């Protein structure tokens, strides 16, 4: 299966990446995708995602391999930002092309749950009173646990 896993340190266009992904998989019956953005919540001016070179991208590649082994896919794309982002900026794009709809959906759902709670990123927000470190939400942990067997 074609895997496209990237850790990006600059802004990107999910629409463009998704268009190229669709073109690369003309024979798949369906493409499921998810785009996550910096939520323009209240007081947050900047979100910083910190990665660690020796773990973050290798971890994303391990995740992609696991997704590959769990579902029947034609292609899988995982693009994730690192660095400083403004509210509204895209953080992550996951897309799966598959013959069957359910495989594509579950692959994207699983990859997102994993990325949101178990991937090697550290996060802080700049508010009017300075920087604050962020821990994963309980909800994200619970989402990821759904897949544990």
């Amino acid at each position, binding site marked *: 299966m074609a895997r496209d896993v990237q850790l990006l340190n600059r802004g990107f266009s999910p629409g463009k990446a998704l268009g190229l992904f669709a073109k690369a998989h003309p024979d798949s019956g369906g493409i499921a995708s998810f785009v996550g953005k910096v939520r323009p919540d209240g007081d947050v001016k900047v979100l910083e995602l*910190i990665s*660690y070179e*020796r*773990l973050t991208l290798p971890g994303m590649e391990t995740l992609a391999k696991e997704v590959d082994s769990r579902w029947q896919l034609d292609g899988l794309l995982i693009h994730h930002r690192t660095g400083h982002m403004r509210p509204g900026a895209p*953080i992550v794009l996951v897309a799966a092309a598959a013959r069957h709809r359910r495989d594509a959906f579950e692959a994207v759902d699983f990859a997102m749950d994993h990325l949101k*709670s178990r*991937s*090697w990123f550290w996060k802080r927000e700049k508010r009017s009173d300075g920087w604050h470190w962020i821990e*994963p939400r309980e909800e994200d942990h619970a989402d990821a646990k759904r897949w544990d067997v």
Partner: protein
Amino acid sequence: MAVTVVFIGKLADLAGEGEREVTAPLSWGGLEDALGADLAEAASQDRTKIAVNGAVLADKTTLQAKDGDEVALLPPVSGG
């Protein structure tokens, strides 16, 4: 003869720097000594993990780093 110790996230705030060279070889006890009280305390917390050259240690007290190794101190991930 040095090991590079990398501080990630809030541990970099605590260390006041992103990385530090310490003398090789480096055991867990040697790391605690090299870090000083506050960082050693943070490093010893259950949720802080340690990776050597990108491999996370199951038990950080088994740390054995040699010259040229990179030891990373990893606070709990906050996810993407």
